[in-house]
């Protein structure tokens, strides 16, 4: 089943065509990597999907409903979770409270004025932290966490929404090499076990080729190749885009 479908997406900044007629889709349970050299349009594409940018042209559908131009908070409500390239967590709260906030929002109990927030959905939050390996740090403030740990907290926050689509912008940026593979393996396992569609952008090719089911390659705003890792690895245009400058 197709979770996310992007068709003929276009976005220009002034005269620069940042994304030009890009179409792709992600199926439930599938891990799709979006790659491309700097300036290829990955981040622009990504920000259209997550609601931060409005496409000039094209359609974006999540489970058959249009999401183009919807606010990030509406997209979350439809069942999408996301992590940021530069982590964004609530620094004055503990790790557990960060996940509890996402759960409170998921269960629509944020407007409660008199219950005690720290006591709500506590076990569920710890369960999610367990899954990303952060349970032992549940009591620590997010402000003092190591960067790689923050990335894992973000994953737990995203999972709190019981998402059917997970958007991860450079999920392993700033992590140590060992941690990277571990986090993506975890993500890929979650996707398969819970039938979550995952779309991620990534610079680390090892991570991409090891963990993605399918890869789409962008260059200068256009989609130049897509397919499984073996297929993309063998693609002449991909080799040219990535290796061209080295051969020159």
């Amino acid at each position, binding site marked *: 089943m197709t979770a996310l479908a992007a068709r003929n997406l276009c976005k220009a900044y002034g005269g620069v065509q940042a994304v030009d007629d890009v179409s792709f889709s992600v199926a439930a349970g599938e891990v799709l990597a979006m790659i491309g050299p700097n300036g290829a349009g990955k981040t622009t594409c990504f920000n259209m999907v997550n609601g931060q940018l409005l496409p000039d042209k094209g359609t974006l559908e999540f489970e058959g409903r249009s999401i183009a131009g919807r606010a990030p908070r509406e997209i979350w409500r439809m069942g999408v979770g996301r992590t940021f390239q530069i982590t964004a967590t609530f620094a004055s709260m503990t790790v557990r409270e960060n996940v509890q906030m996402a759960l409170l929002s998921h269960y629509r*109990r944020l407007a409660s004025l*008199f219950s005690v927030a720290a006591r709500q959905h506590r076990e569920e939050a710890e369960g999610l932290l367990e899954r990303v390996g952060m349970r032992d740090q549940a009591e620590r403030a997010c402000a003092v966490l190591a960067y790689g740990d923050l990335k894992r907290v973000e994953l737990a926050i995203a999972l709190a929404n019981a998402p059917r689509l997970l958007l991860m912008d450079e999920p392993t940026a700033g992590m140590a090499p060992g941690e990277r593979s571990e986090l993506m393996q975890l993500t890929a396992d979650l996707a398969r076990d819970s039938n979550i569609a995952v779309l991620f952008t990534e610079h680390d090719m090892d991570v991409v080729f090891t963990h993605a089911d399918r890869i789409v390659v962008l260059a200068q705003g256009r989609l130049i190749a897509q397919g499984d890792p073996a297929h993309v690895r063998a693609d002449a245009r991909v080799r040219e885009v990535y290796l061209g400058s080295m051969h020159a």
Partner: protein
Amino acid sequence: MTASAILIQFLNGLASASSLFFVAAGLSLIFGVTRIVNFAHGSLYMLGTYMGCSLVEYFGRTPLGFWGGVLIAGLAAALIGAMIEATLLRRLYQAPELLQLLATFALVLVIKDFALWAWGPEDVLGPRAPGLDGAVTIAGRAFPEYDLLLIALGPVVLGLLWLLLTRTRWGSLVRAATEDREMAGALGVNQGWLFTGVFALGSLLAGFGGAVNIPREPATLMMDLSIISDVFVVVVVGGMGSIPGAFLAALLISEIKAFCIGIGEVHAYGIDISFSKLTLVVEFIVMAIVLVIRPWGLLGRAASVARGPGTLEDPLRSPSRHLLALGVAVLGVLVLMPVLGDAYTLVLLGDILVFALFSVSLHFIIGPAGMHSFGHAAYFGLGAYGAALALKHLVPMEAALFAGPFVAALGAVVFGWFCVRLSGVYLAMLTLAFAQITWSVVFQWDSFTGGSNGVVDVWPAAWLGSKTAYYYLTLVLATAGILLLWRMLYAPFGYALRAVRDSPLRADAIGIDARRFQWAGFSLAGLFAGLAGALYAFSKGSISPEVVAIPRSVDGLVMVLLGGIQTLTGPVAGAAVFTWLQDTIARNTDFWRATLGVIILILVLAFPQGATGMLRRRFAREQS
């Protein structure tokens, strides 16, 4: 209005715009480079006016004496500004924004009392400008010669500033620092001298703006706060940091005011509208409209996002057993106070309780919700007036007591709708603007609010009439209010407010509607501030527009910041200490403002994180 009347009002507007522009340009320059919103800027303007009057008297009323006096007054203001920067503000560039504001407000208090000491409480009338004291005839009407000179002076100063900023090395450094302070620092710009220089230039403009106005306006002790709110409006409407924007906004606002005065009373559709009375309100309405349409002002640009983490706050913990025991003990003593203390202590404690509630309600929005309000007195005042006027309209006192908070909450709902659309300094200015609008309405609407006389005979019902009974009422309601506000901060609602403050991006990404939560938070804070105001009104028996004035808003900020914004109990401690201090000082010296100002300055310099924050840190260090 006839064509000639329109022309004259237009010229009047132009003449008023010049001085307003000088002062606003100074504030804008200082803000652009140092990111400090200098409340004391209006005080330098006031000093410029007073010094101008005295110097011209001293030099003699000759053209040379007059212009020499005006220029030297400006230069003296520049010197004072540079000294303030070098000795005081320089130590606070790393401190939180609100604390910087507090320090500059302490300067307002000190300078006001200095002026009181030096020139006395009476208004000082300035001399006319020798050689320009006549009038010319324009379109059949007399128009002062001096005002023509002022009209010319505005564009001249704008041109000089433009040359200075675009054609000199110093000017390009100023512009670089305004664009990106960190980058300018990284490129090796000597920030110390640059900042002192900018402060001197800004203060020169303020002092000159004040001195050049002496033929038109008398020097009074009230002018510091009245000009600073005008100037805030101009700078915000024009765009913070933009000199041409300040010029444009000064013109716009002066013209609108001039025409309001020119139109005067209008009788239409069976109602009388007094446009001349609208002058106090109209500039704030302009500002509210501009900020909603262009949140960064007419010629300003969207503020760059500050880099790096803001002030780091620890996670909210449940109160420790010790703290709970202390709270119960304090409550116990408060309950026994009517037996233990005298009548005077009871009244003072009642005040402290009222202001503790006010301060906690302010903390609710400026701390956890991160919305820096400069105008929380609006809701305190609406509560006080709501209760007092309800009583006057024959509602029983018990009902009037609750009408107050209701009116305040209504005000907060309306004003809050605008405020949550902004953030940072712009939000602060808008809250100030709404407080000033409220003040103006209260001050001018004689027939309903009693104008400057206020409302008298606002006494509680008979069964609450004794000091002890009213004290218990205050104790119960204030404590309940404070505990409710705290409880909300532990609830998902309070967490959502903190979430929006900590990371708007993440809050949006997990489905939190930031504006809705901030709006609700703002309204709730208004409700409880209104309760404090209503309690205050009945405890005093009369109220005046002072309950809505700027100093009341600042009092609240002082309480929260002195107590420590990062703790829940801090605002209560701050309210207690501040209210007691103010009472003690006021009884012992005529110069209570200056004394208070100096105490605030010392505290700010000694504890840039607030007193409770400091205590907690020391405590934490001892434990570890």
